[in-house]
């Protein structure tokens, strides 16, 4: 328990809370599979549900060396994923903050980059936008596509700036991604209050 706490940065209280939740999700098994996420009712309405669930099983997020998807995750992995959403602490220094921020952004990056090649290509971006807008039945695919394209262009101009007419922009790499989020305080926004985890929300 202690080493879990140290590694992930949670307090023991929080770990207990999350453990309870884990047990609920896994129905008292030792590991969770993708199917277990289906039991969360509210998650159904989330347009990017697929990506979120996927993120839990993404080996890159689990800090494992390999690539690809895990089939099941245990509690430790669960905690690892949750640790990305820890709020910042007052006593963090610059370097820690920076690392923290990078980790969080990397998590987000992996959600965009579904084929694990290290960059967000146009197709992947389009995919994301389509999913985001999938809740809106009146929107045609082309709109979503053009939006994605436009955003990609923006990204290209931010990241690469001056490009010659024949240059091709491969995709958003992680550094570019970092650049785009530069103005935004991701470390303060990307957090969940773990202490208030109640097992009120039941899974059926």
């Amino acid at each position, binding site marked *: 328990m202690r080493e879990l706490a140290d590694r992930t940065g949670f307090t023991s209280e929080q770990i207990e809370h999350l453990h309870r939740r884990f047990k609920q999700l896994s129905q008292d098994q030792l590991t969770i599979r993708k199917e277990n996420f289906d039991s969360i009712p509210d998650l159904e309405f*989330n347009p990017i549900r697929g990506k979120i669930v996927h993120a839990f099983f993404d080996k890159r997020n689990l800090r494992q060396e390999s690539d690809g998807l895990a089939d099941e995750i245990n509690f430790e992995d669960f905690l690892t994923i949750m640790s990305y959403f820890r709020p910042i602490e007052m006593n963090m220094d610059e370097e820690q903050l920076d690392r923290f921020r990078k980790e969080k952004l990397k998590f987000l990056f992996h959600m965009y980059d579904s084929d694990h090649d290290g960059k967000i290509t146009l197709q992947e971006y389009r995919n*994301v936008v389509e999913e985001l807008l999938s*809740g809106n039945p009146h929107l045609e695919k082309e709109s979503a596509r053009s939006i994605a394209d436009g955003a990609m*262009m923006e990204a290209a101009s931010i990241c690469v700036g001056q490009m010659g007419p024949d240059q091709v922009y491969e995709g958003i790499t992680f550094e570019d991604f970092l650049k785009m989020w530069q*103005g*935004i305080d991701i470390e303060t926004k*990307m957090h*969940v209050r773990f202490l208030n985890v109640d097992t009120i929300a039941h899974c059926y």
Partner: protein
Amino acid sequence: MSSSVFAMKMKLPCNHCLFSFHLYHKLPSIVPESCLLILVGLLLGGIIFGAEEKSPPVMNSDVFFLYLLPPIVLDAGYFMPTRLFFENFGTIFWYAVVGTLWNAIGIGISLYGICQISAFGLTDITLLQNLLFGSLISAVDPVAVLAVFENIHVNEQLYILVFGESLLNDAITVVLYNLFKSFCQMRTIKVIDIFAGIANFFIVGIGGVLIGILLGFVAAFTTRFTHKIRVIEPLFVFLYSYLSYITAEMFHLSGIMAITACAMTMNKYVEENVSQKSYTTIKYFMKMLSSVSETLIFIFMGVSTVGKNHEWNWAFVSFTLLFCLIWRALGVFVLTQIINVFRTIPLTFKDQFIIAYGGLRGAICFSLVFLLPPAVFPRKKLFITAVIVVIFFTVFIQGITIRPLVEFLDVKRSNKKQPAVSEEIYNRFFDHVKTGIEDVCGHWGHNFWRDKFKKFDNKYLRRLLIRENQPKSSIVSLYKKLEIKHAIEMAESGMISKVPSSVSLSDYHEGKIKPLSPAEMENMREILTKNLYQIRHRTMSYNRHSLAADAGEKQAKEILIRRRHSLRESLRKTNSLSRERPAAANTKRFLSLPKNTKLPEKLRVRNKTSSRVGDSSDSELDAATTVLNLRPRAGKILRDQRLRPQRPLPEFRVEWKNEVDGSQDGRGEQQEPSTLPQPSIGFRQPLLTRPRFGTLSREDLTADHGPARPMPPPRLVRQASQGDRTVGNKPWTY
């Protein structure tokens, strides 16, 4: 005679002052406007006093509360960034309620302690009177806060904390003031009265908010049906909000909270129902009213200061000032320590300092002190003097020094960036991620409630209150806005010769991106930021003067736009038919918008499925609102104009040629019928007849939903020779 002289004296210097004040740009950065206005008021007061040997007309509290204050609060509430406000609501509420209580009681009791010292000659002021005084002087004033914070641009979080507090503490102030005033007039006070007072607070606050929300809904509902009578839409907004204020005041509830709640509710729904013009009218009129009110308030304060209703007592006045500052600082500090436990983003010392320093007093306490019944308060003049000193101190000293302090402390400033679709996408994505994780955790966080509210909103409220209710996506609306902006700007600014028009998004096979020339991107960005003409901009503009910039240039250019449009329109009509033939002849076909006549049907079909953006006074314009319809919309704009073409044809040809030259070579040849200039040249991409969308084979065109789409799916990309040119993907649309 003297009154007319007075009026004249008032008006001219005021106008001159304001005018010159803004001409001399440096001044507002050093001295907040409120200071100057008070000075002007003082001057005027002095003149009048000197001329007539009696006190100048004092600002009537009725006038203040009924006429001058509501517009300011309305303006603030309407443009309040709601999301940020609700995210910080707990903190704001905490500061407003507990903070004001703390201040009021603290100041009251400590002043009472001072009064007990017989050396100061204040022993006749009772505890209750002191408490009352404390309650009216502890209220942070929204007018003053707005006036000062406007120019210093601290980050939104900080701003919303101070400003939100100043709005919400009205409820407490009202309750405390009335409570203590009635206590002062009562013989005995029982414990039950104190509890009644506490209960009263809840009634006052919540009642005010409920009235505001109710009337906001009524207003939204009314505007749902006003599409036939656009002209009076702005009237409803103002009427209902004022009604909410008056109603709340009538029931002795908090009028400020009512009008704030009403404004926030209206903002959400009314904006979608009213036409573009109405929206603009509302925005400008609101800003104008609030500017005028603010000016008058400060001037009156200055005028009222001069006169005979003062009693100076060194001890009382200086200790009041001292206690105000001390208790404010203490209060903020202590409260923050407590609230930081509950916040995920704790407030740093810098934040706390600015919050404490930003607790400015203003016209509300000024008016409240004038409202004190002199029979019960024999030392009323003393109170007035003390209040004036405190106000002057906060407005002048704190107002002037806050800017250098902010810079010195390196407080995070707001970065006003141009809205970008990619940011919006990221934000949305991020929200969903957070919500998802919270769901997984089983945590009912902010996001959870916000989601729930949104669902409720979508299911019931929006259906009821909004006329053409389409599920709204902020990404899509932002994107549309920017696209239309862009298109109009393209039309008006004409042909930007360096446009490499062919730049389009990747050959989708390879998934690569061919970017626009960056210079052009820059150009576009600038253009986009400037052009606010027809676009409804959901600005978080709590800056009183932020509107000035957008207004001017666009209006002037409008006529130019329309003329050019009409010219193009007429050209296009003549040319469209003749274009068809060469198009058919070539192996490479054009994607053209064949007949104008087809458009209306398409547009009407679209009308049902797209959400409204744009001016519905030109009702057909409503139709073309989706991204896909950008071209038809352009056509619509053209079609609606009745002006005759004024420009000679060759100009277009030249312009067009420029574009062609700028584009990739391959296209050039297709434009052989370039003797028939494309009328819609101005539009870089949503061009009505341009082959920019690559070349499609006829079959593909018909197979598709019709050539009216500016963006046929990439599968129709053809020419291998121009591998980098794709169909339909607009690279430079945002």
